[in-house]
C-alpha cells in the first residue's frame, strides 16, 4: 500500500536536494575559475550568490522538519529524510568553502600569482567529480558507489600535501613570497575541506541505504 502524498513529498525533496547539489557543484568550478583567471567580477558574483545558496539550504531544512513533524516517518523514510537534512547542511558548507576561494581572489587583487595553478584546479575538478558521483549514489541508493566516492578523497588529500610542500619550498626560498603562498595554501585548504564534506555526504548515503553509521575515510595526518 503506497502512501501516495508522502511518497511524492519525499521524491520532491530528493529532487530539490539534487538540484541544490548541482548548483553547489557548479560554484566549486566557478570559484577556481575566478582564482585561475583572476576574475574579480566572477568572484563578486559567487559571493553574492552564496546568500541564495544559504536560503535554499534553509528551505530544504524546513521541508525536512515539516515531514518529520507531520508524517512520523520510520525506518527507511526516516533515514532518507535525516540524510537529506544532513546532506543539505554539508552542501551549504561546501558552498561556503567555494565562497572562501572567491574571497581569496578578491583579496589578492592584482598581485600576480606565485606560480601557474596546476594542482589546485585539479583538486577542484576532483571535488566536482566526487560531488556529482556522491549525489548520484544518493539518487540511486547505491552504498557501494558512495564508498567508492569517499575513497576518492585520498587523491584530494595527496594533492593538497603536494601543494603544501611546494608552497613551503617557495616560502623557504624567499620569505617575501609568504603572503602569496599563504593565499594559495588557503585555497587548497578549502578544497581539502570540500573533499571531507563530500565524504560526509557519502556516509549519509550509506546510512540512508543500509541503516549503518560508519566513518568511511578516517582522517589521516597531513
Amino acid at each position, binding site marked *: 500500500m503506497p502512501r501516495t502524498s508522502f511518497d511524492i513529498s519525499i521524491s520532491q525533496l530528493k529532487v530539490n536536494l539534487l538540484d541544490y547539489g548541482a548548483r553547489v557543484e557548479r560554484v566549486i568550478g566557478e570559484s577556481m575559475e575566478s582564482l585561475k583567471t583572476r576574475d574579480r567580477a566572477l568572484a563578486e558574483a559567487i559571493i553574492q550568490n552564496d546568500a541564495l545558496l544559504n536560503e535554499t539550504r534553509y528551505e530544504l531544512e524546513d521541508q525536512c522538519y515539516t515531514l518529520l513533524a507531520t508524517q*512520523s516517518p*520510520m525506518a527507511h523514510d526516516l533515514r532518507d529524510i535525516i540524510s537529506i537534512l544532513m546532506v543539505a547542511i554539508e552542501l551549504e558548507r561546501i558552498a561556503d568553502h567555494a565562497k572562501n576561494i572567491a574571497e581569496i581572489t578578491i583579496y589578492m587583487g592584482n598581485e600576480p600569482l606565485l606560480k601557474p595553478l596546476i594542482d589546485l584546479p585539479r583538486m577542484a575538478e576532483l571535488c566536482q567529480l566526487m560531488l556529482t558521483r556522491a549525489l548520484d549514489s544518493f539518487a540511486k541508493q547505491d552504498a557501494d558507489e558512495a564508498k567508492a566516492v569517499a575513497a576518492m578523497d585520498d587523491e584530494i588529500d595527496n594533492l593538497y600535501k603536494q601543494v603544501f610542500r611546494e608552497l613551503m619550498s617557495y616560502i623557504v626560498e624567499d620569505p617575501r613570497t609568504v603572503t602569496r603562498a599563504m593565499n594559495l595554501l588557503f585555497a587548497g585548504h578549502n578544497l581539502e575541506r570540500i573533499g571531507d564534506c563530500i565524504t560526509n555526504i557519502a556516509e549519509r548515503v550509506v546510512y540512508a541505504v543500509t541503516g549503518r553509521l560508519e566513518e568511511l575515510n578516517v582522517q589521516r595526518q597531513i
Partner: protein
Amino acid sequence: MMQMQAKLDTIPAALSVAPASIVKMQAEKLSVYYGAFRAIAEVTLPIHDRHITAIIGPSGCGKSTLLRAFNRMHDLIPNARVEGKLTLDGEPLYGPGIDVVDVRRRIGMVFQRPNPFPKSIYDNLAYGPRLYGVNKKATLDDLVEKSLRGAALWDEVRDKLHQSALALSGGQQQRLCIARALTVEPEVVLMDEPCSALDPVATIKIEDLMRELRNNYTIVIVTHNMQQAARVSDYTAMMMMRPDRAGEMIEFDLTRTIFTNPQDKRTEDYVTGRFG
C-alpha cells in the same frame, strides 16, 4: 590514533547489543487454538525483566491472543487451547498443578477500555486484596494509597476515595485500573491497547506512568499505535498473519532498531505505514 580508531569501531557493535537484562517470561513455539483454528503459530519471544515490550502488527495478527495467553486468559474460553512452552522466571505457566489464580496475580492485565467496578474508588482497589484475604483496614488503606501513588493518581483522588469510580474521567479510570492491577503486587503487567479509548493528554499520562512502572514491573503492551510503541517500549515484537490466518512473530528486536532499521521487509512496510 589507532586507539581512537579501535574505540570508534566498537561503538556500532555496542549499540546493536541489547542492554544486559534478565528474561522474565519466555514463550517458546507458543501456539493458541480456538477449536480447530490456529490463531497464533509457534511464537518464540523473550520478555525482559523490568523493560517494556511492545507487540505490534496489523489487525487480526494475534497480538491480543498472544497477550492473553501470557496470563492464561484463554482458560476461560471453551475450546481454546495452548501448545508450546511459556515460562515465568523459568517455571512453566501451563501444566498440571499450576495455580491459575496465582498466575493471574503475578501477571496482571489492563484492558482496552477502562473497566472500573461500579463501586467507590477505594473499593475498586481493595477488591483484589480482599479476595486474597486481606481485611485489616490499616493494611488496605496503605495498599490503596500505595497503588494510587504508583499509578500517579493519588493527588487527583485522595479527597474522593469513597466516591464512585465511574465519576472519574476516562484517563483517570484507566489509571485506576492500572492501580487496581498493582494492588495485588504483580510482577508483570499486560496492557492491551491501554490508551485506545483515551485522548492524547490522557495517553501521554499513561505513557509516562508506564515508564515509571518500568522501574518495578515488567510490562508487555499491545498497541495499534506505532508511535506509542516507539515512544514507550524498549523492545518491539512484530507480528503478521500468515496465509492460513494464523498469527506469527516475524521480527523481535530493540525498539530503536525496529523503527530505524528493521530487517524484515514486512516490518519496514508496516512501520513506514505502507501496509496494514
